[in-house]
């Protein structure tokens, strides 16, 4: 699809953008040269180990560290008492990293040790004696919301801590006008982001209070600000460098071990490395909210939606902040409904504090709403794509969460799904086919980047947004496009916190959009300076110089008759024409375009065991403009796979004792490669007017539709309408046999 010509800033004939060059980090990653969080070592470094709660909820009576401290080779033992008193803003963050008066979930950190070897640190951790007084706990979201539920922590009166409401119109009036109503309750279990690289860091504080942290994170500026605030340091005293990152998906947008490593380093006077085990990762990092959602929708006989109502209950751990507000905002975002209301309740439970996970809160809401829409289609006997095409949000629709949409691509993805060969392919006996759509807001935010023109005509690019999805390649492409030079001439790095202005975390699908915008601005600024040098060389006004195809040209015959000066030629002379040439940009990016996708899934249920096999899967999504289509397709596929895993088998399983039963990849079942067919993708390009090249974030939307898409396919295969995620074999078999799982 060509770029819309109404966006005058958007270049129509791209040379580098839209191509598929080799990824700049590929060789490092396949040869092991890439340095991840755990790969940093420093002279004199010692190893930290965290002591974790074995209770879901308990009061800490005492912590005896004397035996651990007495063990030869132990350099420091810390508890909460070793951290400074906190300002209000950081209390919850530190509480989650190191318990204060009570432990609030299984795995909650209560102390930490640092010793000269990893095995010694483990022995020392086992010597820390914690006396607990067990308190009542609750881990299930509905149980926590019920009257008389055990209170998740001391000093609160209810586990329901916040309520959010969005919508417009009059839903009662809307339902009165409806001919057909669908009303159901859905539940989803918490899932983990499942990144391959466990959290790891090295912290090194000197006697002067100046410190460095090396860590794997989606936002090293966030790590700096958070750790500095917790430790009572100034930002200039702490420099944070982001390592290469082995996956994040939102789970590395907060701190877990960094304040602890810093406090241990301060006490021990040595660099301290902490590497989480996989068990620690499951116990005490991530996960998503678990949810329970009531949905009611009403339509006229002609298939027009007239009312939608959803009540969402999300638990996101013991501190609130379940992000249910985003679930309530996203719930009906795909539809144009005159009377719509979504109410979200934020509920506490004795579980770890939620971290963002790829379109946080939207997949659960979409599961509920899309499943209800599909049921409505069955009742009305209309095609699910025709129904959605009739009722979908378009440019000018007032969204269910407030804003009125500009140019959006939902209708285009639905039409593309209808036209896709997958939708019309004959369905083999025993299989079912599902379809659903999904939405994500996308985000801009604070961003700073720097671009240096080297004297040999190559370009060094510094960005402050860790590369979790191939953004360095996209940044190089956008810089090369703006400068008019080949992709291979540009190399991007993720610079540390001392080297650039503040950058928000890599999240909200913001990086290709916002860092891309900053990179293009930086390149444009460098181009202005390159033109100035050419003007100076030619002794003509700078207004008479224009930049095209990587070179300065006299702008028209009146400017003079000079041979073009290429970027490399200007760079080679820069030392004698005024010194180094660079470009910078500092922005708070606005105008991230919302993103929509539609998914199609074929599945077959083994009716004797309840096991589901996904046989075909197609993702169709609006990317605005795909800078590097391989990465965009990879995002579509990766999001779909994580959504399929969530739909089928992934779940946090708690015992009666409130302890996590499956803190490892053996019993927390993410899909393996052989579980899945090749995920087909179709990129649509409806340019985002807020970006010079039309970019929309693409990373999060693809995890939103799969839960409902797979549920719809399961219904088609075996006749069972599953309302509880995951749709694991025991649950599906129980449904087939008419019993509760």
């Amino acid at each position, binding site marked *: 699809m060509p770029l819309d010509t109404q966006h005058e800033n958007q270049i129509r004939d791209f040379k580098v953008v839209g191509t598929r060059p080799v990824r700049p980090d590929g060789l490092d990653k396949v040869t092991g040269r890439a340095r991840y969080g755990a790969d940093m070592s420093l002279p004199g470094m010692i190893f930290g180990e965290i002591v974790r709660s074995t209770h879901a909820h308990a009061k800490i009576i005492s912590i005896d560290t004397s035996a651990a401290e007495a063990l030869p080779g132990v350099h420091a033992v810390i508890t909460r008492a070793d951290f400074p008193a906190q300002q209000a803003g950081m209390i919850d963050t530190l509480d989650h990293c190191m318990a204060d008066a009570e432990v609030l979930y299984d795995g909650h950190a209560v102390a930490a040790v640092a010793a000269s070897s990893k095995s010694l640190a483990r022995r020392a951790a086992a010597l820390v004696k914690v006396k607990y007084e067990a308190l009542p706990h609750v881990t299930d979201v509905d149980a926590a919301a019920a009257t008389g539920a055990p209170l998740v922590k001391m000093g609160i009166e209810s586990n329901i801590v916040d309520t959010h409401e969005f919508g417009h119109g009059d839903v009662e009036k809307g339902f009165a006008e409806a001919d057909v109503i669908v009303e159901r309750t859905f539940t989803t279990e918490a899932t983990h982001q499942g990144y391959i690289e466990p959290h790891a860091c090295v912290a090194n504080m000197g006697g002067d209070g100046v410190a460095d942290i090396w860590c794997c994170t989606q936002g090293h500026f966030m790590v700096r600000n958070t750790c500095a605030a917790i430790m009572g340091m100034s930002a200039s005293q702490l420099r944070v460098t982001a390592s290469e990152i082995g996956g994040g998906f939102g789970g590395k947008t907060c701190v877990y071990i960094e304040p602890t490593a810093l406090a241990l380093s301060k006490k021990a006077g040595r660099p301290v490395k902490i590497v989480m085990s996989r068990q620690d990762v499951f116990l005490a990092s991530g996960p998503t909210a678990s949810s329970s959602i009531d949905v009611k929708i009403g339509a006229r006989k002609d298939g027009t939606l007239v009312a939608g109502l959803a009540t969402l209950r999300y638990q996101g751990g013991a501190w609130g902040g379940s992000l249910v507000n985003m679930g309530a905002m996203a719930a009906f975002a795909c539809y144009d409904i005159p009377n719509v209301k979504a109410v979200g309740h934020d509920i506490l439970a004795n579980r770890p504090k939620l971290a963002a996970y790829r379109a946080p809160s939207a997949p659960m809401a979409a599961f509920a709403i899309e499943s209800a829409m599909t049921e409505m289609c069955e009742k009305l006997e209309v095609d699910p794509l025709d129904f959605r095409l009739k009722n979908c949000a378009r440019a000018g629709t007032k969204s269910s969460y407030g804003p009125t949409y500009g140019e959006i691509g939902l209708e285009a993805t639905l039409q593309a799904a209808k036209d896709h060969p997958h939708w019309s392919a004959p369905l083999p006996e025993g299989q079912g086919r599902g379809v659903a759509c999904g939405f994500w807001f996308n985000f801009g935010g604070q961003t700073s980047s720097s671009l240096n023109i080297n004297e040999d005509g190559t370009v060094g690019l510094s960005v402050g947004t860790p590369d979790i999805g191939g953004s360095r390649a996209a940044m190089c492409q956008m810089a090369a496009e703006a400068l008019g030079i080949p992709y291979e001439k540009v190399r991007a790095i993720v610079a540390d916190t001392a080297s650039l202005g503040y950058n928000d975390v890599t999240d909200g699908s913001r990086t290709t959009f916002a860092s891309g915008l900053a990179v293009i601005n930086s390149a444009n600024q460098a181009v202005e300076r390159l033109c100035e040098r050419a003007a100076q060389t030619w002794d003509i006004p700078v207004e008479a110089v224009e930049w095209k195809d990587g070179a300065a040209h006299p702008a028209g015959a009146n400017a003079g008759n000079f041979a073009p000066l290429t970027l490399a030629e200007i760079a080679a002379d820069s030392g004698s024409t005024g010194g180094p040439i660079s470009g910078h940009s500092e922005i708070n990016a606005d105008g991230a375009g919302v993103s929509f996708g539609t998914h199609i899934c074929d599945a077959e249920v083994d009716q004797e065991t309840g096991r589901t096999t996904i046989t075909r899967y197609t993702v169709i999504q609006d990317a605005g403009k795909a800078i590097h289509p391989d990465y965009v397709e990879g995002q579509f596929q990766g999001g779909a796979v994580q959504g399929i895993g969530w739909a089928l088998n992934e779940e946090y399983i708690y015992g009666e004792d409130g302890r996590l039963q499956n803190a490892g990849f*053996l019993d927390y079942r993410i899909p*393996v490669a052989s*579980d899945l067919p090749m995920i087909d993708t179709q990129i649509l390009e409806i340019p985002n007017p807020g970006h010079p090249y039309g970019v929309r974030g693409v990373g999060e939307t693809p995890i939103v539709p799969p839960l409902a898409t797979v549920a719809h396919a399961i219904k088609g295969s075996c006749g069972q309408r599953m309302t509880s995620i995951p749709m694991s074999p*025991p649950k599906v078999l129980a449904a087939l046999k008419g*019993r509760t*799982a």
Partner: protein
Amino acid sequence: MRFEAPETVEAAVSLMAGEPGEARALAGGTDLLVQLKSGRVAPDLIVDLKRIPSMTAITQEDGGFRIGGAVPAAEMLEHDALTAAWPGICEAAYLVGSTQVMGRASLAGNLCTSSPAADTVPAMVAAGAMVRIVGPDGARDVACEDVPSGVQKNALKKGEVVDSIFLPARPARASDAYLRFIPRTEMDIAVVGCGISITRAADDTIAEAKVALGAVAITVQVVADAAKAIIGTRLDDAALDALAAACSAACKPINDKRGTIEFRTDVAGVLARRAAKIAYDRAGDAA
């Protein structure tokens, strides 16, 4: 922690028996190393068995096969005569972990880890495998089903190791099959496992059968009623129904993170039907 790699069975037994603290035998190490790394075990002595030639050999003996205690699954899968005679055991071995894990993991290790969900154990039990255990008091041969005695508990005494596993000679028209249920397609742990060995008579009725279930009780279950239900039949629908019912009835599972009691009970019958059909078909093709 001490590490020893003796070159004879006698030396291995003497090291294991002589260690006053905790001694652990290391074959492929695919369980032990994970336990060490996670801090679940911290033995005083580890005795690596892989330097002992007899422990790493597959030999033919009395028409059957003797598989050394440290033979990795991958070597079994490349042994043509073994895979032809015991396809069920080999397919169970093929389910143990990843390709990399199969390059190390052994039948004896899978047995001695004593997990109720071990894949190769129901297959070995159905096959009538005999386990040769060596120790300070010499060697003894024990039926495979008598080795596991509970979760992470088995019949091996202090100083004992598994020397080898013996798969007996097969009559003509005999074969076996193993199926497990996992929610995914690989890299997973059995929620239910079922091994079945079948010998066909000349008239295609089943002359002999043995049925074993894994992951439905604290140890592998030999289901005599299930074998009885199909012996003398040509595996018609009624026989399959009776087989499935007997297997479901033999289940003593628990509700846990991997499955409910009802689920395991149902699926045990389903797998038994499917495995019996495969073993019966294979027996028809077997020389």
